[in-house]
């Protein structure tokens, strides 16, 4: 463990650019009272803030997984440093126990033995067929294998108490800060929905802290075919889902906004052209288009192995290609929406006043139309996110999604598919992927609802 080399994947660049852009937009919002007021309304929405808390936790996992590096291999001094072929992320380092403690094959959650019988050589007793003991799961119990429930329950309780104490600390800090600003205001009545945030945080801490505590001793969600911990796979899937959800919108946004506004503002043949374009694009089955594009991309990647120094880079490029393709095929909806809204806006009197001053068309678009469309863009962004995470799962399931070496919710489900037919069924991989994705998408949807309510001009 002497040194490491930072690896910057293309998707990492985009992720951190997105974070920077998000912060920048935040600063802009803080300067614009109407937008700030709308976001304040989001902040006052309890459901919205609860789901935002959950989303933030997912985003934190995704960001930790977006800092990549390669470890230096032990070499002789004086020779140039050699780095491991495996690209790791900060998340991998933090979850090292989960990553490294691989079993031989399937094992159920909280199991101490494998899920399949094997022939075991017992010294002096010949061979027996039995479920072999796991290398890591429940190892600390030794011979007391039947005490799993008691041990796990007690550990979870200890962790839960600890989580509660930690939460009390957070609660105290928040309450103190609020008290300082507004001495007589109860937290419940504050403009920002602190109560919802704190309660969600409590629920999350009570679930997550015991989970990870136990994960050190057991495979809480079991292991998959090659013995990898399912919990670790879920953590890795989060980043894939987020990138698909965010980078794709980044690809489609400029196209949708530009074409939508241009079509609506200039009308005439420009409008006709853009309308034909998205009508044609819309009438090609999306999966077909995506499948064709992904397969072509795969051929390109496979025939140029020299482009990639590691497998991670190759998988990363394929992920980005997928985002790009999804973006190309999914801009039509937002474009149509923005065209319609622009058609409405261009007839408004302040646009005509600007035209009467001879303000140029592009300046009118930038100053008068775009800012008044931003609420639609924001609503569309947040609502598309969950749809894209689901789309990735479907595409990976069909086999045209991300690289097979990359973990994603879709590949997890795809891998678990065959094992459902087994007797007894291997259900945990699917169940875990399903629940994690469900929580992520539900949180995103609820947050989108809150954003839509706050930005809806009819409600404001």
């Amino acid at each position, binding site marked *: 463990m002497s040194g490491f080399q930072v690896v910057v994947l293309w998707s990492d660049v985009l992720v951190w650019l997105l974070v920077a852009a998000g912060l920048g937009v935040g600063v802009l919002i803080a300067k*614009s*009272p*109407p937008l700030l007021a709308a976001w304040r309304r989001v902040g006052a929405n309890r459901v919205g803030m609860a789901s935002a808390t959950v989303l933030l936790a997912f985003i934190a996992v995704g960001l930790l997984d977006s800092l990549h590096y390669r470890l230096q291999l032990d070499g002789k001094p004086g020779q140039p440093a050699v780095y491991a072929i495996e690209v790791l992320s900060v998340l991998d380092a933090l979850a090292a126990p989960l990553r490294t403690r691989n079993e031989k094959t399937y094992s159920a959650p909280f199991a101490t033995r494998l899920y399949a019988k094997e022939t075991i050589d017992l010294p002096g007793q010949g061979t027996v067929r039995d479920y072999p003991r796991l290398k890591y799961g429940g190892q600390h119990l030794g011979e007391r294998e039947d005490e799993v429930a008691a041990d796990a329950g007690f550990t979870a309780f200890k962790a839960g108490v600890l989580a509660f104490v930690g939460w009390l600390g957070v609660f105290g800090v928040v309450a103190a800060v609020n008290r300082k600003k507004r001495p007589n205001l109860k937290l419940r*009545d504050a403009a920002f929905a602190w109560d919802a945030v704190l309660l969600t945080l409590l629920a999350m801490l009570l679930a997550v802290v015991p989970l990870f505590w136990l994960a050190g001793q057991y495979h809480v969600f079991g292991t998959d075919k090659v013995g990898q911990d399912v919990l670790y796979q879920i953590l890795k899937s989060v980043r894939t889902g987020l990138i698909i959800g965010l980078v794709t919108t980044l690809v489609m946004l400029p196209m949708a906004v530009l074409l939508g506004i241009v079509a609506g503002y200039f009308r005439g043949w420009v409008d006709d052209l853009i309308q034909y374009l998205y009508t044609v694009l819309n009438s090609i089955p999306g999966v077909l288009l995506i499948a064709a594009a992904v397969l072509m991309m795969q051929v390109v990647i496979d025939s140029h192995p020299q482009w990639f120094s590691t497998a991670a880079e190759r998988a990363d490029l394929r992920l980005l290609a997928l985002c790009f393709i999804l973006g190309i095929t999914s801009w039509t909806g937002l474009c149509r929406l923005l065209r319609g809204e622009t058609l409405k806006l261009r007839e*408004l*009197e*302040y646009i*005509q*006043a*600007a*035209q*009467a*001053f*001879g*303000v*140029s068309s592009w*300046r009118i678009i930038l*100053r*008068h139309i775009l*800012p*008044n469309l931003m609420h639609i863009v924001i609503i569309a962004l947040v609502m598309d996110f969950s749809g894209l995470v689901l789309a990735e799962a479907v595409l990976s399931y069909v086999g045209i999604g991300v690289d097979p070496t990359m973990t994603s919710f879709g590949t997890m489900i795809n891998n678990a598919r065959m094992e459902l037919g087994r007797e007894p069924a291997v259900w945990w991989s699917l169940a875990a992927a399903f629940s994690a994705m469900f929580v992520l998408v539900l949180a995103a949807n609820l947050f989108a609802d809150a954003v839509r309510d706050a930005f809806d001009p009819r409600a404001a």
Partner: protein
Amino acid sequence: MSDALLSVTDLRLGFMAGKRALPAVDGISFAISPGETFALLGESGCGKSATAQGIMRLLPAAGRMLGGRVVMDGQELLGLSEADMRAWRGGRMAMIFQEPATSLNPVLTVGRQIGEVLERHRGLTGAAATERMVELLRLVGIADPERRLTEYPFQLSGGMKQRVMIAIALAGEPELLIADEPTTALDVTVQAQILDLLAKIQVDRGMGMLLITHDLGVVARMAHRIGVMYAGELVEVASRQAFFTAPRHPYTQALFEALPDISRRGLRLNTIPGQVPALAAMPAGCRFADRCPQVMAICREQSPPWREVAGGHAVRCHWQGEAAANGRTGNAVTELDIDPGRAFLEVADLKVHFPIRKGLLQRTVGHVRAVDGVSLAIAASRTLALVGESGCGKTTVGKALLQLIQPSAGSVRLGGNELVGLKGRRLRSARRHMQMVFQDPFASLNPRLRVGEIIAEGMAALGIDTESASHAAAIAALLKQVGLPDEAAGRYPHEFSGGQRQRIAIARALAVQPELLICDEPTSALDVSVQAQILNLLKKLQAELGVAYLFITHNFAVVEYLAHDVAVMYLGRIVERGRAEEILRSPKHPYTQALLSAVPVPRLDHPTAIIRLPGETPSPANPPAGCHFHPRCPMAMDICRQAYPGVTELSPTHRVNCHLAG
């Protein structure tokens, strides 16, 4: 009152804002007898509509009943269950709304919508219902009712929709009709028809009517008793006679004095300073105290009690005096002999035709002749009023002058330079000389820009004063000129009221120092008191800057007050033009005469008989042959059906297009 049909006692209702209920209507009481029209009068935001919705129990989601009693025919309505209440709504009491275009369901036929009420409240279905529907439509004056029953709302004109709405309201044979601004969205000639209809029906059926309006003219024509609302309270209740002869509350008096009128030409209109207090910040004492010319110390401390000044005339005011000494005499200055000077804007035979396209290949099958040969001339420091009903093309004229809409033919000469056909930079520099003020102050300012940026936009686009220091000074000077504080430049439009927004729009237009300001109904979205402020401002600016106005409007009171010259437009053509006094005192065209007589006048003594125009303005896509006005003209002759009349010059300035004059 024991014989009252409806009695409202101490009604209080409010709207939820967060966890607080802000009272929008605060303890109002009145009663309506059968056959009586009670008018609730007040400016926007005074709680008039909320009162009506409260009586019908149709408050929006945020609305809350805070107390009071609404008793109709011995039955307390506020305590009824929702199911029982439905039998009252539409059955015993019915409502007509302001906007006929949105109060009918566009996907149901007229028959279905009337039939719904008949079935629910009268139990009529099938042939009996159809028979009743035909009767109802005939009652509200719709020709060919059998055919109309099967038509959809989009096939009807605005006035016809309002008639259908009235038929629906009458279908349940209500004892009480609530009419919420029933004619505000209609043209004057149609408004006159609808008001006549309402008055006739009310007399025939002995209905009680609650009329909600902001228009003193409508009140004068319709109401028996009047309640004046201010900031959620009734401040004066009087009979029609007492209301128009001796209004007692300072607010009522101020409303009358803020009205523009021919007798006030050349004078400043009285305005009510400030604006209606916000719901969240109601003053403790009298709510009008901050804007009242007669304010006393006691007004700020306690809310005044009701005081009976005469039988049936009660007022809520500490001030005991009568009308403020109105020493102003009518201004009889005649302006006929003032030389208007040379015209600097000359419009000749301006035409704007919009093609109607049909079919797969979008072939042009006809033209909407929105503007069809309009000639105008405006001189510096003069105001030309372009008057007409909606759809006559007056706004299109304004936009075509600015080249916002490309004219199809004709010429617009500004100081000798032809504007039609100009492009790019030369058009831009020409635009410096004219600017536009729009109708809706809420749609004409970009909500995402600060006021300073809005005003600076024109200067930047036309390349005036690009230096930032002088920029800021110029903006401050403009704001001062239109009567807004300096610090307004850093704020956003939504922080201002309608009248203040209109001032900002005027400042924006003035920023490029235009010689002509095209004002497209700049006061029609504003309350009377605010309208007076804007009209005063426009007059002041004209005196200071010598700017000319093309004032596009349908409001004759404003024309009488402001205009030097008047042009009356009908269906894309100017039918009469001349000096304001010529047109207003001796109109020659039957259309002008009808328009003038249809305007509801806020006085008891209406001088002339009202000329009723049948029907509504035809479509400009398919104008009638001959004189466009002949189908509606009471004096149409044979020649009118054959040829469009030429210009007749009655005086050097007064010309009319009518066969009668020729």
